[in-house]
């Protein structure tokens, strides 16, 4: 990315200030949310269902619009400027609860589609990288299969590899293990742990307390469209400061 686009005053990877969002039906889903994510940091967002976690992280790559406040991603301010949105989407990868692999394309084509179409890279070069990534997430031998032929855990690992193939600076995860059978959760979390160890900046919405304790630098609790509490995992889980946090932890622990 051209360096003049980067804001030297803001070394943070994501900087969200007072973000407010109303859905078209008038529902006030985000009511002034602040969050700063540093480079290389892993932030876990928790909170009861319907508290606005998905809505919030989807504003980072402009899958959702917001009406008030500001968001800066890697120095680029999110605005209506479509070119800036495209630039941000190239740098921000997203992994969804439902995997959202492209079922009509082979695993390999799922990985190479965006780098070839968006980054205009040569197909053979991308293919090599794609195979290396599939190796890394442990499913190189499935490269020529179609998504419908894989288990949920394998699909989610392909989805992670697909995001990585665009060489993003940030990865967003929206409940990546919530629709997996229990025995497949670990294989996905292990891949994510590996990414964190390699220094990837990650924002992860999850209810996996073990993952949050081991991997997260910071845990954020959201409720009713607001950030209620944030802190290091040990402090957050062992000495929650707010009544709302204690209620939530009592439910999931």
């Amino acid at each position, binding site marked *: 990315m051209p360096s003049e686009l980067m804001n030297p005053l803001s070394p943070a990877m994501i900087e969200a200030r007072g973000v407010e969002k109303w859905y078209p039906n008038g529902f006030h889903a985000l009511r002034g949310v602040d969050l700063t994510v540093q480079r290389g940091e892993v932030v876990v967002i928790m909170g009861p269902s319907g508290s606005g976690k998905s809505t919030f992280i989807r504003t980072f790559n402009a899958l959702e619009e917001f009406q008030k406040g500001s968001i800066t991603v890697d120095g680029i301010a999110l605005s209506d400027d479509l070119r800036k949105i495209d630039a941000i989407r190239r740098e921000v990868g997203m992994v969804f609860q439902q995997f959202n692999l492209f079922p009509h394309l082979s695993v390999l084509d799922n990985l190479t589609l965006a780098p070839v*179409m968006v980054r205009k890279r040569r197909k053979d070069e991308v293919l090599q990288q794609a195979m290396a990534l599939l190796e890394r997430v442990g499913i190189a031998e499935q490269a020529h299969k*179609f998504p*419908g*032929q894989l288990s949920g855990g394998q699909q989610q690992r392909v989805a992670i590899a697909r995001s990585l193939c665009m060489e993003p600076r940030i990865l967003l995860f929206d409940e990546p293990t919530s629709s997996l059978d229990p025995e497949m959760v670990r294989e996905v979390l292990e891949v994510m742990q590996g990414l964190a160890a390699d220094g990837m900046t990650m924002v992860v919405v999850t209810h996996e307390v073990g993952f949050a304790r081991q991997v997260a630098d910071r845990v954020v609790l959201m409720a009713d469209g607001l950030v209620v509490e944030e802190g290091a995992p040990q402090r957050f889980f062992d000495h929650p400061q707010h009544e709302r946090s204690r209620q939530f932890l009592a439910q999931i622990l």
Partner: protein
Amino acid sequence: MGPIQRLRKDLFANPLDGLVSVLLLSGLAVAGYRLLHWALTQARWAVIQANSTLLAVGRYPIEQQWRLWLLVALVAAASGLSWGVLRGLPVRDRPKTTLWPSNDRLAAILLVFLASWTPALLGLTLAIQARWWTLTALVLLMRWLAGRYAGRFAKPAALAMPLLWPLLYLLGMVLIGGGLGLVTVGANEWGGLLLTLVEASFAILLSFPLGVLLALGRRSSLPMLRWGSIVYIEFIRGAPLITLLFLGQNILGFLLPGGLAPDRVWRAAWILTFFSAAYLAEAVRSGLAAVPRGQLEAARSLGLSLPQALGRVVLPQALRVALPATVGQFISLLQDTTLLSLIGLLDLLGTARSVMANPLYLGKSAEVYLTLAVLFWCCCAALGLGSRALERRLSPPSLSR
């Protein structure tokens, strides 16, 4: 399971099934026997023999008819090619299909069987009979070549196949209408099956992209585009085709300045196109609705632009789902062309009616209508078979299969 056991299981699983099967089968047998008896002993096929050229091409000049034969040969070759590619080529990651799956072997035998005696039965001259045999041989030869060798050229074949039919269509229009050094044969000289097929194929080829655009427009977030599409689709779907045809014949003449208004044949073709596009839009819309929202979101979050995401991720899946409904629309479009006879065009039905009006052939309408029905049935069956082969080829493999 052998064919006999399968028949037993399908038709005679329990006493009630058996009874229903026996009744239906005997009813069918009686009706079939009567029809055959009538067709072979009582019917007088002279009306078809004497008018076969008229029914096929109308008043197309005889000395130019070689162009149509050439076109038929090209279509036969293209059909054989498509057949071979759709059925004979292995799909990657699926068990290798044989060169001739058993259904195809049966179809080929049936084709040879029909080609060997129908032309003679219809009383065509030996020279014409020979042409039909050659055409059949051409279809089967191309089928074999494509199935046998296209695998080696999979990449160029995949690129060329979607272009084959539109290109052939353009070439066909030149062959039929003239230009590029060929003598012009005006649209008012086309008739019979030729006119029916020209009108139907024109409308099919053009209404498809138009329908896709309308379907996308209907789901667009731009209000003007959305409302425009909705009004168009609902207006067209709310009016019977025949009124639109009459309206179009009159109104297009007023609306467009003199000289720009296309002649009656093309006017009708455009109206069929606009009509069919509205229905196709609905078929495509149901396909779009079947693609989960997450697909577009995933594509966009990877940085694909909206046209890229639609073209590479959403539409391929949506059109695959919409394929049966789309082909159903094509089939009804083909049948709707018979309405053209009501606005005075000499399509297949119009030509047939003019033949039946001839006192010489009084009381021979059963023979003529039966011939028409068989011709339409053959065209629709070809469309249906092609669509099913395409559907099977396009569906991605999954665990459940």
